[in-house]
């Protein structure tokens, strides 16, 4: 009934809505609801980045599942992280940080089997995460996210997430939040 163009634009909007809703759960510390949006087989990967010579981009990122990375894990570990925060004695998050996840530049890069009836969607975005805690402690994290989303009834699930942080030396003491 609707043109392809319209279908694509509406799908992009729908996916953006999903990513904003996800960010909202994280900023509101509704971690259990957030976990519920993650596929059981999710891979949550955040590589480290190197300064490399021109033409050697292949060595820029540490490799998933074989190198050391900032994050490279599945749902079980993510669930343990939530559990740790919920103990109330995870000192790096107690008192809790004040967090805002800004998500922008939401791009749908592909949809399978089709934009009209998508079952899996690959989406890329930019993020800015602002963290402020205790009195004056402040961090700003900026980068890109490449997500694979999977249709789940009316909604979506995150089936895979690759996080590209625009840093070499991590400019913070820790990474106690979800991205």
């Amino acid at each position: 009934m609707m043109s392809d163009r319209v279908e694509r634009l509406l799908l992009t909007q729908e996916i953006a809505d999903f990513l904003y809703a996800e960010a909202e759960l994280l900023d509101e510390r509704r971690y259990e609801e957030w976990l519920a949006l993650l596929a059981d087989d999710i891979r949550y990967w955040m590589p480290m980045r190197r300064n490399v010579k021109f033409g050697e981009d292949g060595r820029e990122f540490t490799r998933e599942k074989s190198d050391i990375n900032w994050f490279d894990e599945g749902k079980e570990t993510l669930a343990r992280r939530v559990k740790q925060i919920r103990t109330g004695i995870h000192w790096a998050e107690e008192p809790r940080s004040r967090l805002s996840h800004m998500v922008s530049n939401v791009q749908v890069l592909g949809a399978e089997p089709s934009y009209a009836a998508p079952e899996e969607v690959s989406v890329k975005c930019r993020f800015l995460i602002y963290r402020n805690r205790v009195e004056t402690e402040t961090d700003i994290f900026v980068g890109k996210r490449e997500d694979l989303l999977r249709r789940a009834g009316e909604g979506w699930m995150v089936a895979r997430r690759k996080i590209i942080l625009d840093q070499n030396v991590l400019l913070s003491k820790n990474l106690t939040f979800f991205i």
Partner: protein
Amino acid sequence: MNGTKGYHPGLVDLDSGEISREIFVNADIYAEEQERVFARAWLHVGHESQIPKPGDYFVSSMGEESVILTRDRTGAIHVFLNSCRHRGMKVCRYDEGSTTVFTCPYHGWSYGTDGRLVGVPYFREAYHAKLDKEKRGLVEVAQLCNYKGSIWANWDKAAPSFQEYLGDFTRYLDLQLDGWDGREAQAELLGGVQKWLVPCNWKFPAENFSGDTYHNISHRSVDLAGIGPSGRSRRDLGERDISRKLHVCIPDRGHQTILYLMPPGEPTPPAYQNAPIVQEYFAHCEAEKRRRRGDYGRFVGAPGEVFPNTALLSRQPRTMAVWHPRGPNQTEVWRWFFVDRDAPSEVKEFLRDYYIRYSGPAGMTEQDDMENWNYAHKASQGVIARRHPYSYEQGMGTAVQDFEWQGLKVPGDVIDITEVQSSEQPMRNLYRRWSEFMAADSWADLATWRRNDRTAAE
């Protein structure tokens, strides 16, 4: 913000077990440390497997400064200050790679991988061939040591050799670098060196990894959440039940570590119950280690520290860390991770996952350490705080020399913490050595063991 100006002996009082907060927060003391400690002590730079082939390089750090670890065309390993001799430009701004020369971006001087100044634009014309190139090579460290693949360097040519510097601590570094089965230098580096900034003085992590068993309580949230691969909250509870847990300090050297001493004969209890392959691998290695190392096979490593700023962790997560000073109030941590070279890939993969979720800024355990170091430092900067020294009284006067258990002697000052749970002997050992470095004018004064009865036996 600056109480006393600079270091003076009263600040570290080991008789009372009190150490002034000044040594952590005072900017003048920090500046002196750069000269007296970091320009004279042996510092860890990297691992030879990071530069396997001639021309390979890895840009590392010594104290505050950037250095280049490189292997020249003849295969020899060097460490150079990463700064051009002409106007100081940082000659290499990549993290690692392979090259034939380091060409300075500013005026194009180029240096060989052996540090020699090989290219000077217009050498004949502008310099009338008069520049003494020999004198203008990259600044090289005074001493370098490749110990079982780990590379160490020292800016002071008067310093003793690395092995003399280690003294009786050598076998604890061996636990880090040898295979779990006791074969020599079997450590393999996992790809990727973690680097991150912590807002605290470098000595907070240094003393923590010297053997602070007392802060386990701070990790209770991890125990509750569960992190251990064995499904139990900590992977090593098993061996804890039957072994002796020791604080081992090497007097005069400033090195110290936790050590688990296993009973003879008895096999190490099973761990990794949920991962048969891993369980089997370590069981096999334990047996092999006993066979190869004999009695010393009963040693099981744990966090320790090579003076001043290199941390060892020879059990799982198996890692080395360097605490680079970045001003009195900031530390840049570098983290290397190891597995046994010949371990099955399933074991390597299994351990890598564990290391990542345990260690570093995203590590469920260490996140809380960084938080504590940050706010312990911050709450110690004020004028009133500085009037109240820290307490290092735990287990004072309880260390013994020539500790022995079931037929095995452990050299050094030793406290058996199996029952007492903890002591601050390792920190006292660290700061005793630190204050010797701050007070001594040269290595002649620092090589105390050479004129020391107790260690004359060496």
